[in-house]
């Protein structure tokens, strides 16, 4: 507890002290891009909020979210996607690909698609990479006695999802293998989700734990992206103190709503629900 307090104090001090290096990041909007086959184009807005010029470059690759054995989301990248993979990475181009953003400067990047002829209807995926670095390498840590200076430059890279949609696309998700258990001060929930249809399932998983009287005692809400299948893990903080032992009901709902994305970019589907009774000791 004391360690946590010290950590908080140190971080509070760190956050209030003036920054030594000037931030050279770049602000990217939107953070998910959808391109329709009818227009074959999209755009990305970049902004340099700092007071140093920033070198920015854009590239694309193919990848999709998966989950690891612990239920954490990760990105599986495929260097050379085969013909069976719905990759748009090879036929997407950004204009300009490289630029120097001056302080407070904004730049619109055009994304143009040149899909192959006779592209079947469906959804195709790519990942956009926006890399930013400052024009100069800061060096810090000077020691006059040893004559050694040590500098670690910080660079940043933002990876965004891009979906290219041709024709009518649909999505839904199948949920199974709902499990839950108390881990420390939280309820850990696992769920197997398999995407159905022709488009990635972008949505939210919400869960609520009710006590024997039906009163909700814990909740969670987490965004999910199901491109093939995933086994995510969610946690719901349990209320302080001990919950009385007994039968509890966990209800889980998966919907195509996303708090952080524009509704017009989402493909609606019917909510999927599952529930589980568990005994808390």
């Amino acid at each position, binding site marked *: 507890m004391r360690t946590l307090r010290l950590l908080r104090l140190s971080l509070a001090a760190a956050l209030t002290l003036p920054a030594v290096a000037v931030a050279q990041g770049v602000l990217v909007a939107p953070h998910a891009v959808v391109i329709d086959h009818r227009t074959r184009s999209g755009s990305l807005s970049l902004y340099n909020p700092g007071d140093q010029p920033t070198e920015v470059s854009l590239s694309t690759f193919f990848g999709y979210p998966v989950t690891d054995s612990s239920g954490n989301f990760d990105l599986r990248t495929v260097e050379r996607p085969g013909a069976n993979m719905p990759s748009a990475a090879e036929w997407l181009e950004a204009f300009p690909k490289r630029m120097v953003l001056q302080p407070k400067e904004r730049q619109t990047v055009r994304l143009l698609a040149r899909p192959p002829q006779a592209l079947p209807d469906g959804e195709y995926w790519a990942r956009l990479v926006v890399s930013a670095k400052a024009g100069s390498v800061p060096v810090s840590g000077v020691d006059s006695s040893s004559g050694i200076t*040590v500098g670690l430059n910080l660079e940043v890279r933002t990876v965004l999802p891009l979906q290219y949609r041709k024709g009518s696309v649909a999505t839904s998700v199948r949920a199974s293998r709902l499990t839950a258990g108390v881990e420390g001060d939280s309820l850990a929930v696992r769920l197997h989700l398999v995407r159905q249809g022709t488009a990635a399932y972008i949505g939210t998983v919400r869960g609520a734990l009710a006590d024997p009287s039906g009163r909700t005692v814990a909740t969670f809400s987490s965004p999910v992206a199901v491109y093939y299948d995933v086994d995510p893990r969610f946690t719901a903080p349990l209320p302080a103190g001990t919950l009385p032992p007994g039968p509890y009901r966990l209800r889980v709902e998966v919907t195509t709503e996303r708090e952080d994305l524009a509704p017009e970019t989402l493909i609606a589907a019917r909510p999927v629900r599952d529930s589980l009774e568990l005994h808390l000791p």
Partner: protein
Amino acid sequence: MRFQLLVLLAALTAAPSAAAQVSVAPIRDLAFGPVIVGIPSTVGPNHPTRSGQFRITAPVGSKVQIRLTLPGQLAGPAGAQLPISFSSNDAIAVGGWPGATPNTFNPKATRNLQFTGGTIYNVFVGGTVSPAANQRQGNYAATITLTLTNF
């Protein structure tokens, strides 16, 4: 044709919603201060002035993954190298909203962050440099890259 051009123009000029922005910015270099030859120098991620700091902004409710690409050596004069290492508790992520709890994590592993109570996360990084007793004098530099992935 004219309609398509208008659609294209609208798409290109549409201002994205402020709520849909993401950014990751390096705020502060990882600074080791005086380095003495033959003696390892460590900076903890909770050091108020010397830890490296990144600031991530994303909409409330979003979930991102961060991955730090870390060097094993710093490059110096005439091909000289200076070893740098990162331990399993050399990174801290903390939300920028009241009551957010700092989470210590291994900077060599990926980390998922969810923006539950605000739009800002700060990530702090520490490390250890180990100059040899006969370390060549000069400037040593390397790069830490933070990759932010939106799902």
